[in-house]
């Protein structure tokens, strides 16, 4: 057993990170700045809008897609958040979740399509997804900080790693579940690749893809406290601060706000998948 000397995975990793940092560090910085700008302007926008308006928007969305009960819950829940002075923090968290989820969709859905279409891509992507989903978040928190500094950008990147796999997996699953006869239908009428994709496969896979996006949102929300440890503000930051100061009551309030946000987003996006024949 001991014939083979220790394999220095740790040193290799450090060297690799250092190399990337030296070679691409400035590019990461520029990327980080642009992304921060985008996320911050979304945060500013959400905070600038009157809380009443946002509550009404959520209530209407919930009413339209998920029914009266969810709409009532949204109104009461969001009012409660406003009442306990957590509104701004909630908007910061919402902005971060939206950013992460939008990125997950932009990156994840095409990758999912690729994995469904090309077995080679599937063979490469799948083990990476296993890796992303099981590697403890704290392990990639540090490199994220190394590349993107402290703040909201590394938080979003870390969230991305944690929350993107279900989008990819379920997009692939959804496409593979399209009945063979409908694939034949598309081909038999002479559809091109993109006609197949946009007219047949994606519409039919939509409920499954929506389930993936729904999972992505929930996972993003579950990352907010961890994200706070590398400088993301918002509800996660409040919970983190409360933990550090042993303020059980404040911690509970912020936690409750996360739950309210999660339930409303979950119910609305869940019904996106269903509300169509």
């Amino acid at each position: 057993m001991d014939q083979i000397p220790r394999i220095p995975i740790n040193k290799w990793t450090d060297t690799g990170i250092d190399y990337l940092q030296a070679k691409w560090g400035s590019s990461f910085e520029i990327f980080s700045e642009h992304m921060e700008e985008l996320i911050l302007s979304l945060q500013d926008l959400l905070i600038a809008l009157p809380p009443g308006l946002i509550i009404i928007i959520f209530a209407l969305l919930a009413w339209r897609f998920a029914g009266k009960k969810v709409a009532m819950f949204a109104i009461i829940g969001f009012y409660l958040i406003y009442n306990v002075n957590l509104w701004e923090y909630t908007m910061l968290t919402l902005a971060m979740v939206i950013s992460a989820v939008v990125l997950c969709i932009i990156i994840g859905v095409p990758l999912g399509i690729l994995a469904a279409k090309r077995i080679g891509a599937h063979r490469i992507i799948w083990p990476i997804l296993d890796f992303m989903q099981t590697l403890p978040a704290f392990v990639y928190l540090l490199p994220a900080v190394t590349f993107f500094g402290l703040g909201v950008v590394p938080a979003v990147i870390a969230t991305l790693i944690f929350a993107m796999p279900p989008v990819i997996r379920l997009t692939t699953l959804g496409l593979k579940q399209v009945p063979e006869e409908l694939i034949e239908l598309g081909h038999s009428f002479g559809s091109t690749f993109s006609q197949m994709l946009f007219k047949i496969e994606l519409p039919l896979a939509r409920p499954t893809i929506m389930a993936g996006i729904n999972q992505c949102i929930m996972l993003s929300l579950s990352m907010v406290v961890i994200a706070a440890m590398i400088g993301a503000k918002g509800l996660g930051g409040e919970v983190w601060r409360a933990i550090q100061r042993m303020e059980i009551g404040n911690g509970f309030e912020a936690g409750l706000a996360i739950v309210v946000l999660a339930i409303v987003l979950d119910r609305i996006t869940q019904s996106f998948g269903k509300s169509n024949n």
Partner: protein
Amino acid sequence: MAKIEVKNLSKVYGNSPEKAIELMEKGKNNEEIRKRTKQVVGVRNVSFSVEDGECFVIMGLSGSGKSSLLRCLNGLNRASTGSILLDGQDISRVNTQELREIRRNKIAMIFQRFALLPHRTVRDNVVYGLEVQGIEKEKRNEKVMHYLKLVGLEAWADYYPSSLSGGMQQRVGLARALATDPDILLMDEPFSALDPLIRQEMQEELIELQKKLQKTIIFITHDLDEAIKIGDRIALMKDGEIVQLGEAEDILLSPATEYVGRFVQNVDRSKALTASAVMVKARSVVYPKDGPLVALHIMERHSMSGLFVTDRKGVYMGHITADDALRIAESKERQIDSIIRQEAPTVSPDTTLADILEIVAYTQIPVAVVDEDNILKGVLVRGSVIAGLAGERMDA
């Protein structure tokens, strides 16, 4: 030139079809090939041709290779060997772009389980082929409504497929296939998923439509009654091969193999066989100018109580009875033209036995079979009809 010409077509599923084809040429059977090469033979050296406007039925049980064969015709399956000429163009050798064009314009498919897109309304399902063709919107909608009317579903245009019955869903499938105005329709067991009554209704509708549209149809079924009803010609498949190809009556009356024979056993012969298959030759006729004594003499010789009358060209004129002939013979009339009766029913050679039975049951004398030019082609006697039902040919 034939519309579709298939020559020595084989389809092998697996990663190295060459090995299987080699064994196939040595005459090994499919099971042996599968064991030795792990390749599955779907279609085995099949040749046939289909004329423009013909309805060609491919029949066989599941696993006989009929669906594999059908899918070779529009390239959903790529043929392993052999050629498939559509209007002279070999579709097993065209490139992707050419194949796409052929599928868009020339050949459309109708599916067993309808294959409607659940997220689109009936209208938007029918429009699919036109959308793929890239036809502009107004023109598209006009065509769609035309074909929806043709299948009687114009009132359902804005419904989703899930609110339609099976028969209606398949009509949508039919309208969708017709909308691109293809020459060739591939129908993959289109009515198998329907209730028996709806199925019959759809078969009749298809026959009516076909009279109007004159498409070249390749129709797949496992139901011989359906094959006989719809097909101009029938190819019977087993283990990837065509075991018999011919018109319904050829297959019914002279099954090529024991397998076909067993297949044919349970068919409803009364719907499959027509007058021309069971009629006997009119052994004796008289002409209007003949005298009553001649007629009586012929009747006596064949021990019959009546005779059919034709002119010299064989055109059917009616019949005479022995009683009438005797009467005018006594009154010394010289020609029988005054006693020709025309009230007896006649049938055309295409009339099915089911329809004939009714007529024969209520008619005293044999029934005349006449063609569209009113030429007397033969005679139906009870014995020959019953023999036909029992599955034997009665030689006159």
